């Protein structure tokens, strides 16, 4: 917790400055609302916001989940068949150069205006960091560990399960964290382009009616959701890899008793 203190302090200072400047220059609220007004709007439109947020969360979670599953399968296939990896991996990188904002409208054309295209956008945004981190994680295994298992007479599948996959965990989880921060934004972009529910839709409506305070309230909510999701993944990573977070070595002299 302590390590977040400096950034929290900076954030607070920024908000206070913002509040003060809006007050000092008497800025109209349709132009730039003050932080306190945004907070007030958040509370006042909470019923409406919750309704939209639930949709966005739903899209985000499904998209993220779909992305993890496909990324996992593809990473394992690429890892098992180097030829497939040589063929697909560069294409994956190229696919990232296509702006998602231009793909999203096509998804609307193909899948309609329901939830599916939004889930698709989230999955597309999350997919790349997850698959790359997993492939790199599987590659990063210490070859001597693999040799040790080979000498013990291990099969290919044992080697995957007992060494390569667990060795990929730290990298895999950093990919998941990056994906988690993108995911909410992916859902909002999808909603932005055509929806009848969701935070993105709420933002469109608000900005068209010059309710800038509501736009900012939505932005704050998106940030909060992304952070919460990130925190959730961080928590999962701590639960899945307790060993990764335990690094305190006990000094030798405190317990070494082989000479007794």
């Amino acid at each position, binding site marked *: 917790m302590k390590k977040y203190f400096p950034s929290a302090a900076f954030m607070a200072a920024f908000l206070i400055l913002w509040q003060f400047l809006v007050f000092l220059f008497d800025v109209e609220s349709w132009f730039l609302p003050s932080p306190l007004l945004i907070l007030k709007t958040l509370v006042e439109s909470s019923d409406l916001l919750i309704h939209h947020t639930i949709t966005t969360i739903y899209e985000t979670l499904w998209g993220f989940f779909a992305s993890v599953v496909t990324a996992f399968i593809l990473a394992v296939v690429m890892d098992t068949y180097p030829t497939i990896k040589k063929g697909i991996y560069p294409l994956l990188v190229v696919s990232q150069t296509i702006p998602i904002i231009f793909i999203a409208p096509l998804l609307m054309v193909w899948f309609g205006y329901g939830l599916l295209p939004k889930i698709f956008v989230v999955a597309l945004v999350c997919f790349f960091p997850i698959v790359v981190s997993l492939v790199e994680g599987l590659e990063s295994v*210490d070859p*001597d*560990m693999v*040799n*040790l*298992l*080979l*000498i*013990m*007479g*291990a099969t290919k599948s*044992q080697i995957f399960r*007992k*060494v390569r996959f*667990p*060795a990929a*965990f730290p990298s895999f989880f950093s990919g998941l964290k990056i994906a988690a921060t993108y995911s909410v934004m992916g859902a909002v972009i999808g909603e932005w382009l055509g929806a009848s529910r969701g935070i993105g839709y709420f933002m469109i409506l608000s900005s068209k009616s010059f309710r800038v305070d509501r736009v900012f309230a939505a932005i704050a909510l998106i940030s909060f959701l992304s952070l919460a999701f990130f925190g959730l993944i961080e928590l999962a990573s701590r639960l899945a*890899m*307790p*060993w*990764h977070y*335990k*690094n*305190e*070595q*006990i*000094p*030798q002299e405190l*317990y*070494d*008793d*082989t*000479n007794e």
Partner: protein
Amino acid sequence: MAVIDVKGVSKTFYSSGSILKAIKDISLSVNRGEFVSIVGPSGCGKSTLFNIISGLQLPDSGEIRINGENVTGKKGKVAYMPQKDLLFPWRTIIDNVVLGSEIQGIPVKQARKEALNLMPLFGLQGFEHSYPSELSGGMRQRAALLRTFLCKKDIMLLDEPFGRLDEITKSKMQKWLLDVWERFQTSILFITHDIEEAVFLSDRVYVFSDRPAVVNAEIKVNLSRPRSQDVINHPEFLNIKRRLWKALKESI
């Protein structure tokens, strides 16, 4: 009777036009319950020999026999301990040491029980459920040795297991290794470049030459067991050390 017989093993590596003769016509053996060491200049191909014995690489010629059976190129026949402890960071100590049983399909419950009983002897009691990152170098090495031991093979290959430890820890570990070895009557083939270590531990020592490695000398260590640290001042100890030095110098 020989537990392991290495007969006329040679290996040459060809890579991008260059030829590297690693080992040439190596023959050696380890008898049941014997402690045998290999010393040689670093980079002389000792590890290549271990890779061949453990089945990771095929020799160009020659064969490996364990208990008379030809096991050349076969894996899963020896217990191997590398210089790096290679404990899996995501497994607790107890889960690390039963790895061999897990691979061989022996019920893990039984293996864990046995491992727990051996923890005190290996100086790991109280650390069964710790992660390797929480242990000191000496303890990790002992855990790696327990893992090797629990593979339950007729021969243990130890590849410079104490090479990275400080002198004091190293000497404790040597003494302790001898205790374990005497107690369980295992057969050990031990690689080191430390002459004193080889003499202190072994019944016999093979001296390898520089690349391509050949067996340059085979020296018997006639020192009584159990050995204590004081043995290093024994005239016979110094005599053997001198002979080993001479053989090593001739081989370079």
